[in-house]
């Protein structure tokens, strides 16, 4: 009987546009679209910033130190045109109305500063909302400072190595996989937790509140099928939808990474491919299944309680935030899977997946996370069972 109900509910759900959108379409197309847009925009933006000719204001004359140095820089750091100003006030007016993009002002007399071997104070004015300009100014100043430093050391007759007492090298012993897991691995559980929840949401509302609202539940309850069988048949579809949505979102993400040039390099792509082993996928689903059952278990009592589709949506929407917060924990650096975090539902799945990607998994903690998730899933199912058994909840 459970399977008969499951089959019918699945057929019914697959013909519902909202469920199809949340279960298949959005999870599959969201990441390819999102990644394409981000890559396109950032590529164009960075190209534009790098190649864009900017106007630079300099207070002083064309004989001043900063003017000469800026003019001598080649166009590798970007095209530029220098404009001379008599005072900072007029230069700042032009900077504000975007006639120029950077402004340089030298505070002290440069001839005296160089002669007396004192630092030459330079202020670089920039508009922080103009993306990439401060980086351009820093690049100019880095080259000018390097040249000035070498000249001063030369005039002091000092070898550059003599004033460099330490040479520190930092070596990363973490594997690419580990690095990827720790830095980007938090994204994966975040994605499948969110999509797993959204995937469960619409079928749950449709199969419980919707059935009440449409007046079909009454006839279903007069059939010789036990209520728990009806509940389990419907719950099966909710869980399947959540798992499908999570899987589709991961597939969408994977194919986006494979097909869109992210500029990530071959090493990163090889790392991603090496992560996707059979063991990884099996362990991922081991965590994903109780998580989705837990989601179904908390959504179903709400959808049974709600009298209308609208009411159910208005209760569940804030619940999204409650789910997002523990999912975001995995994105926070420094929080690891420990005995304590393994006992916190959702957080444990997020952190275990992060470790799973990094390959730094402690199987004992994964087992604990799994047991905790199964326990909360059972509790959530029991709550659903109790709520579905209540006459006043099932019938409007």
């Amino acid at each position, binding site marked *: 009987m459970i399977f*008969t109900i499951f089959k*019918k509910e699945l*057929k019914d759900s697959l013909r519902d546009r909202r469920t199809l959108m949340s279960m298949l379409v959005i999870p599959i197309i969201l990441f390819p679209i999102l990644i394409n847009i981000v890559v396109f925009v950032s590529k164009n933006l960075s190209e534009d910033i790098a190649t864009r000719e900017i106007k630079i204001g300099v207070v002083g004359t064309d004989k001043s130190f900063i003017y000469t140095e800026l003019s001598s820089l080649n166009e590798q750091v970007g095209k530029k045109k220098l404009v001379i100003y008599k005072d900072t006030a007029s230069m700042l007016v032009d900077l504000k109305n975007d006639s120029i993009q950077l402004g340089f002002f030298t505070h002290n007399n440069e001839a005296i500063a160089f002669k007396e071997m004192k630092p030459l104070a330079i202020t670089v004015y920039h508009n922080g909302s103009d993306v990439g300009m401060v980086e351009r100014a820093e690049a100019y100043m880095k080259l000018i400072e390097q040249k000035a430093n070498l000249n001063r050391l030369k005039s002091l007759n000092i070898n550059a190595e003599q004033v460099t007492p330490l040479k520190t090298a930092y070596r990363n012993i973490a594997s690419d996989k580990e690095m990827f897991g720790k830095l980007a691995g938090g994204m994966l559980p975040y994605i499948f937790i969110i999509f797993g929840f959204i995937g469960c949401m619409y079928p749950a509302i449709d199969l419980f509140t919707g059935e009440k609202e449409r007046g079909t539940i*009454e*006839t279903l*309850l007069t059939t*010789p099928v036990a209520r728990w069988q009806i509940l389990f048949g419907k719950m099966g579809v909710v869980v399947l939808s959540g798992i499908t949505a999570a899987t589709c979102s991961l597939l969408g993400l994977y194919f986006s990474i494979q097909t869109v040039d992210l500029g990530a390099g071959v090493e990163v792509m090889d790392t991603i491919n090496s992560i996707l082993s059979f063991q990884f996928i099996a362990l991922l689903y081991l965590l994903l299944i109780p998580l989705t059952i837990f989601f179904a278990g908390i959504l179903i009592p709400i959808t049974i309680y709600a009298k209308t589709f609208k009411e159910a949506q208005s209760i569940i929407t804030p619940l999204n935030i409650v789910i997002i917060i523990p999912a975001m924990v995995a994105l926070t650096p420094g929080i690891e899977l420990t005995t304590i975090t393994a006992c916190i539902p959702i957080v444990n799945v997020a952190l275990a997946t992060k470790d799973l990607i990094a390959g730094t998994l402690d199987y004992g903690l994964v087992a604990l996370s799994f047991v905790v998730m199964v326990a909360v899933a059972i509790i959530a199912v029991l709550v659903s069972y109790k709520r579905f058994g209540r*006459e006043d909840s099932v*019938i409007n």
Partner: protein
Amino acid sequence: MIKVDNIYKEFILSKQQQKELSTKDTSSIAVRGISFECKPGRVFSLLGPNGAGKTTTLRMLSTIFKPTQGSIFISNIDAVKFPNEARRKIGFLTGSTGLYNRLTPNEVIDYFGSLYGVNEKLLMERKEKLYALLNMNDFQNKRIGKLSTGMKQKVSICRTMIHDPEVVVFDEPTSGLDVITAENIIDLIKDCKNQGKTVIFSSHIMSEVDLLCDDIAIIHKGSLLYNDTMEQFRNSMQAENLTAEFIRIIHQSQVKQ
């Protein structure tokens, strides 16, 4: 056969319900000690104004609700103790019955046939017979959402009868339907009676009651005010017509209270 003995139904009121009903009572009694019997081959009508307890009573008969007290026997099966067994004998249809709009009539009938445990051969035979009787062949594979109200009502009838129930429960089956569509229901009730099934239906439309029923019960504020044969009801009438008599009985009970 339906045998109802002294059934009560009490609902616990939530704080929100107490607020909505402007009451401080923590519970509400919808049905108070009702007893009656519906015999095979006869149509029993449960009459009462809105909120009288008709739907609650029929929901208890259909095992959707469990009585707080009392017993219900459906074809000699204790429906309170063995609801699943009793459900096999019951066909249930309401005026507000919804159907699965995204499925076709065929899919809905197959689904309910499976839920009632009707074997495939029997299901095919019954479908063929009911489709022909209700003229459903032309739209059996169209999505229900695209059907007219009349067509949907035929699907509901077919769904109700697919397991050939011994007892058929109709809760205001014609409410909201036009005269032509309502006629399908009237015909169905007559057919059920002719086939020797036990039929109980609730209504507040006296013309329907006059046309169909053999036995009548009047219910008001959860209590049974009258229960006898239709013939006896007609003979003992003090008002000039059935509607007036129904109103008179209701008013008389209010005066007594």
